[in-house]
C-alpha cells in the first residue's frame, strides 16, 4: 500500500523508505517559528546554542503592540534573542508585523514537502502549502531550535475530496463548520484535502480550512499541490522545493466527499467548535454586543474584502462593537490601497493593527461578563475571548458582518446575492 502526503513527507524527513500509522518517527525540522508567547517570563528558557539560525523565524504576534508589562518583557527578550544569534527573519512590531500563520503565507515560508514547527496550535495552517506543519509545545520548540529535529507519532489519514463551487455568501469557514459538525474531531489523525473543487478556491480560502483543522484536533492538515499554490510559493520564496503528491494506492482511514455547492452559512454555538454547527437561521435574532473578524483563519485580504462588500453603503448597529483585525500589516496595506479599509471605518467598524488581539482574549476586544459575541476566528471556547460567562458564536466573516449591521445574528444572504 502507498503513502498519504503526510506519510511521504515524514518518511523522507526521517530517512526511511516507508512510514505508516502507529510509527514513532524522528524527523528533521526545516522551519522553526518562535513567537512572543515563547518568550514570556513564565515560559522562556535561555537558548545557548542554535542548530541553524537560517531555519529560525521570530514573530511577535499574540499581543502587539505590547498589551501588558509582561508582554513587553517577552518582546524585549525576543529582540535580545534575535540580536544575539543574528536571526535574519524577524517580524517585530511595525512594517513586518503579523500573525505567524499569515506571515508564512505572505512570505512563502512554508515550502512544499517540508516540515514546519511552531508552538501555536494553528500551525497546521501552513499545510495549505503541502507541508507537514504542526503546533507543538514550548519545550518542543526549544528542542527543535537547538537540535534541529523533533518526534511525531504517525496517525491515520482522512481524505476530503472537495467538489463543486461555493454559493454566494458561503465561505470555506462554512465548509469547515460542515465538516466539524458532521464528522467531529479527528484526534490522532491527519486530514488531507484534494479534489476537483480546489481549483475554484483561492489560497486564502484554502488556508481557512487548513487553519481551522486545528479545531478537528488533526495532527497534520495537508493540501494536494496544484499550480496555483506552487506559483504562490515560487513568487514569494526563491528556495528550491519538491512538492509531494499522495500515492495512488495510499491507505486512508476514510475518503469523504464535500460538495461545496450544497453548503449554506453555518454558525458554531458557544463553548465548543466540533459537533456544534447549525444553520445560521437557528441563531438568527440573537442580540450581540460585539462582532469580530480577524485571526489566522479569517484575517486575509479575501475576508476583509467580503466584509467590505457586506458593509458597503451600510452602518454598523449602534449596539455593536465591530472589530476587524487584519492578519498582517501586509494584508492591512493591501486593504488600505484598495479602499477596503475606508469602507470598513466609514461603516463604523474599528480596524486594529495586525495581531491575534481579541481572538485569544489578550487585548483589543476582550469580552465582559454575560456579553454575546459573534466571531470569525478559530475558537469559541468558554472564556476564550474574555469573561467565562460571555457567549461566543462563530461564523464566517460574511455572517459576522451581516450580524454587525443588524445587531442580531443574521444570515449574510440578506446582503449578498
Amino acid at each position: 500500500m502507498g503513502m498519504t502526503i503526510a506519510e511521504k513527507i515524514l518518511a523522507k524527513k526521517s530517512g526511511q523508505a516507508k512510514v505508516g500509522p502507529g510509527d514513532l518517527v524522528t524527523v528533521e525540522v526545516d522551519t522553526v517559528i518562535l513567537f512572543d508567547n515563547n518568550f514570556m517570563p513564565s515560559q522562556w528558557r535561555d537558548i545557548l546554542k542554535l542548530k541553524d539560525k537560517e531555519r529560525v523565524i521570530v514573530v511577535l504576534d499574540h499581543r502587539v503592540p505590547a498589551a501588558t508589562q509582561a508582554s513587553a518583557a517577552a518582546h524585549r527578550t525576543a529582540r535580545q534573542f534575535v540580536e544575539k544569534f543574528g536571526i535574519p527573519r524577524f517580524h517585530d512590531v511595525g512594517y513586518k508585523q503579523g500573525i505567524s500563520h499569515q506571515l508564512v503565507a505572505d512570505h512563502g515560508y512554508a515550502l512544499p514537502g517540508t516540515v514546519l514547527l511552531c508552538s501555536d496550535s494553528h500551525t497546521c495552517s501552513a499545510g495549505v502549502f503541502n507541508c507537514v506543519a504542526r503546533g507543538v509545545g514550548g519545550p518542543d520548540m526549544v528542542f527543535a531550535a537547538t537540535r534541529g529535529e523533533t518526534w511525531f507519532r504517525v496517525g491515520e489519514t482522512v481524505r476530503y475530496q472537495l467538489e463543486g463551487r461555493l454559493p454566494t455568501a458561503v465561505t470555506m469557514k462554512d465548509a469547515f463548520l460542515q465538516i466539524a459538525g458532521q464528522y467531529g474531531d479527528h484526534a490522532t489523525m491527519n486530514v488531507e484535502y484534494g479534489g476537483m473543487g480546489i481549483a475554484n478556491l483561492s489560497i486564502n480560502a484554502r488556508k481557512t480550512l487548513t487553519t481551522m483543522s486545528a479545531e478537528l484536533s488533526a495532527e497534520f492538515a495537508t493540501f494536494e499541490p496544484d499550480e496555483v499554490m506552487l506559483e504562490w510559493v515560487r513568487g514569494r520564496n526563491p528556495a528550491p522545493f519538491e512538492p509531494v503528491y499522495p500515492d495512488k494506492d495510499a491507505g486512508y482511514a476514510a475518503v469523504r466527499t464535500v460538495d461545496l455547492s450544497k453548503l449554506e452559512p453555518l454558525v458554531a454555538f458557544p463553548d465548543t467548535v466540533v459537533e456544534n454547527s447549525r444553520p445560521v437561521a437557528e441563531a438568527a435574532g440573537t442580540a450581540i454586543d460585539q462582532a469580530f473578524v480577524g485571526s489566522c483563519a479569517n484575517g486575509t485580504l479575501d475576508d476583509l474584502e467580503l466584509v467590505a462588500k457586506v458593509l458597503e453603503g451600510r452602518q454598523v448597529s449602534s449596539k455593536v462593537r465591530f472589530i476587524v483585525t487584519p492578519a498582517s500589516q501586509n494584508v492591512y496595506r493591501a486593504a488600505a490601497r484598495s479602499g477596503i479599509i475606508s469602507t470598513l471605518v466609514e461603516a463604523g467598524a474599528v480596524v486594529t493593527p495586525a495581531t491575534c488581539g481579541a481572538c485569544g482574549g489578550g487585548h483589543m476586544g476582550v469580552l465582559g461578563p454575560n456579553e454575546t459575541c459573534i466571531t470569525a476566528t478559530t475558537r469559541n471556547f468558554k472564556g476564550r475571548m474574555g469573561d467565562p460567562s460571555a457567549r461566543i458564536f462563530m461564523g464566517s466573516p460574511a455572517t459576522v458582518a451581516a450580524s454587525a449591521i443588524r445587531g442580531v445574528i443574521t444570515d449574510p444572504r440578506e446582503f449578498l446575492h
Partner: protein
Amino acid sequence: MKFTARVWKFGDNINTDLILPIQAFYLTPQEQTRFVFHANRPGWVDLVKTGDIIVGGKNFGMGSSRPAARSLKNLGLGCLIAHSINGLFFRNCVNFAFPAMECRGVFDAFSEGDIAEVDFDGCTVRNVTTGKTLPAIGLPPKLLDLLKAGGIYPLLERDGLIGPRSQNKT
C-alpha cells in the same frame, strides 16, 4: 512507574483554556495552578491532594499549545488517564514530565472518588475500589524514557543547549 490514588473525573473535550485560562498567562507557573478548571469547576484546586489522579473522557486537553500540562503537574497531580488524549497536549505531558496514558473505556470504569492503580510500565489501569482492571495504551519506550528523565528541559540543560532553570521558571 506506578501511581495509586483517588480519582477526579472530567468528561470529553476538556480544553486547555479551562486548564490554563488567559487571565493566568502572565503569572508564575505556581500561581497559574490556582486557575485550573476555575471556569468549569470553581474551588476544585483546593480539594486536590498531592498524587491525585485525573480520569478523562475523549480528546482530553484539546486546544492550544499553552503549557497546561505543566499546571496539572505543578498542582501536584500524579497522572492523567483518559479515553483519548489530544496529540498536542500529550506532547506537553511528555515534555513537562507529567505522566499521561490513554485507556479506552476508563471514563466509565471509574466513579469519582474511586481509587486507581496505574502502571505505566505494565500498561494497566486498575480500579481498586471495584477490582476491575483495564488494559492501557502504553507510551512508545522512547517517550516513556523521556518522561521518566524529567522531560525535555533537563535533557537540553545537560547537553549545554539551554541555560539553567531559574526561580519561577519552567
